[in-house]
């Protein structure tokens, strides 16, 4: 089992009130799955993504990644885990400004302790960018790239350390429909190649590319359907 959540809850404190954003979620994700997480705002889908991707600690419950309990990890262990095992694709791309596409893609390798000025490492980053169709844009900065191109740089960055799991948070949310289609196709292809993807979205047509659809409501799983 790649990812297993067991009775996971997450509470937030806002002022004096405690808000339960996730309420005893239990969920299992196999390798090569493609999940679409849906639900209205406030349903807990974003919190689920943060907790499952090790960005946030769960308040209760256990999380296993490749059958290792990771929910008790400290901050440093979680940083290393995110670096090696998890790829992130954000709605607003989150590329470093005034930094070339190549250097953006190299960032996870830098934090993995690789020599980012070595030929081999650079070559790998170049290959990643070629794979998302940006082989001719290696040295462009985010300001010189369109939204769709920026998101493709972000996808290359998510792939560079060859993670077990890719989390995508509204990957087409900031894009026009044409660029959105390109991203959808790339994600679909990645899944076909064997990548496990967990994607939060509120758009039906985007959710359609996933093989499994989980709908959240009030911090709980409302439905969990697999495509036939």
């Amino acid at each position, binding site marked *: 089992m790649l990812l297993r959540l067991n009775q996971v809850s997450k509470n937030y404190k806002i002022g004096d009130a405690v808000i339960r954003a996730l309420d005893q979620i239990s969920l299992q994700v196999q390798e090569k799955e493609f999940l679409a997480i849906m639900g209205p705002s406030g349903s807990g889908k974003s919190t689920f993504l*943060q907790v499952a991707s090790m*960005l*946030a600690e769960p308040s209760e419950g256990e999380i296993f990644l490749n059958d290792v309990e990771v929910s008790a990890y400290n*901050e*440093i262990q979680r*940083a*290393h885990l*995110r*670096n*090696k095992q998890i790829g*992130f694709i*954000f709605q607003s791309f*989150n590329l*470093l*400004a*005034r930094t070339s596409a190549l250097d953006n893609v190299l*960032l*996870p390798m*830098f*934090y*993995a*302790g690789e020599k980012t000025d070595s030929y081999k490492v650079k070559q790998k980053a170049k290959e990643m960018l070629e794979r998302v169709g940006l082989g001719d844009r290696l040295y462009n900065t985010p300001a010189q790239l369109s939204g769709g191109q920026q998101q493709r740089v972000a996808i290359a*960055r998510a792939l560079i350390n060859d993670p077990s799991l890719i989390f995508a948070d509204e990957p087409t949310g900031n894009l026009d429909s044409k660029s959105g289609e390109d991203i959808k196709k790339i994600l679909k292809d990645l899944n076909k190649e064997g990548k496990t993807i967990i994607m939060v979205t509120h758009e039906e047509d985007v959710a359609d590319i996933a093989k499994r659809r989980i709908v959240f409501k009030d911090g709980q799983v409302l439905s969990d359907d697999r495509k036939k």
Partner: protein
Amino acid sequence: MKITSVFPLALKSILLNKSRSFLTMLGVIIGVGSVVLLTSIGTGLQAYVTDQFASLGTNILYVVPGNPFENGGFGGETSMIESTKPVLKRRLYNQVIRNNRDLIKEGIVTGVNVAEAKYKKTTKKVTLYGVTSSYETVYNTKAESGKWFNATEEEKSERIILLGPKIAEELFGKVDPINKNILLNGQAYKVIGVLEEKGGGFGGPSFDNYVYIPLETLFKYFDTELIDSFVFEVRDKEQIKEATLAIEKTIGKELDEDEFSVFDQSQLLTTINSILGVLTVGLGGIAAISLVVGGIGIMNIMLVSVTERTREIGLRKALGATPNFILAQFLTEAAMLSIIGGLIGLVIAYLGSLALQPYFPAKVTMEAVVLAFGVSTAVGLIFGVAPAKRAAKLSPIEALRYE
């Protein structure tokens, strides 16, 4: 990841905001620049004073009434005039010379007074330096034009004077003063010589500003009997100690121990240098305040920078940066700003000291350089801690959500 990899990262972010980085450094630049420049002036002054004393001769012994090293050292010209008790007698001087022919080559008796000098329409308040004719040889002070008075002229109390080059120029301008008469307190004296330049003074009393007058003339016409000092030229530098004891023994027969002092250049030099040393530290300390202000400037900008780059920090953390790495990155950035500022300040101080050199002895010392470098590094690290800690503590989720 290696912690050394923060250096290129920190440097890059400094270079991304060139003008802001420079403005941030400005406080440290000014701080280090002023500390180094002011201490260089102080140490230069010490070196200059030492040189000046060496040029006056290192085999000279002074005998003065009382103890000038007590009560915080020399009070300058006024205290010389005010040391009123006429304890030093010509007779004592003669005894010292007579008893120590083997040690002492020559000597001078000096007295000081002030007078108003007038030539045509120019009036000046001047210091009259009453000396014996041996002054020329003991201090090796030649008359650049004219001549020195001799022992006979001195004994006869002739109304003749020599002028230091500065006072000569101030009174006479371009006119040749030799054989001209000037009025000292209304009485006429003939200028028989102008001395060569000795330099020094820095606005204080200088040998170039004195009016040199035969001691007997000073005593006869200026209502004083007060001998200011004896100056003895010891035959051999090595015999300074021996000569000091011999003089103390001869004079001690008639005077109490605390009524007179015998000292040489090195004692005088030590006193003056210790005063200049305190002055240097004081000036440097005042300038160091601006370094602290510079450090606060760095902290301010780093705090702004952490806020501005909240999203970037969140992203870096999401991609695997540990809190310690983020801490190191921002701390290094603050330290680099401060160190680069310190180096620029050092260069400016060095150029400043070069520019000053024609007018003022300034000397940038290795100690000042090391101190400035160390202090600017420390300033960067100390004032960088708070912003760096704030960055390291940011939660990746909060940071990524930050608009």
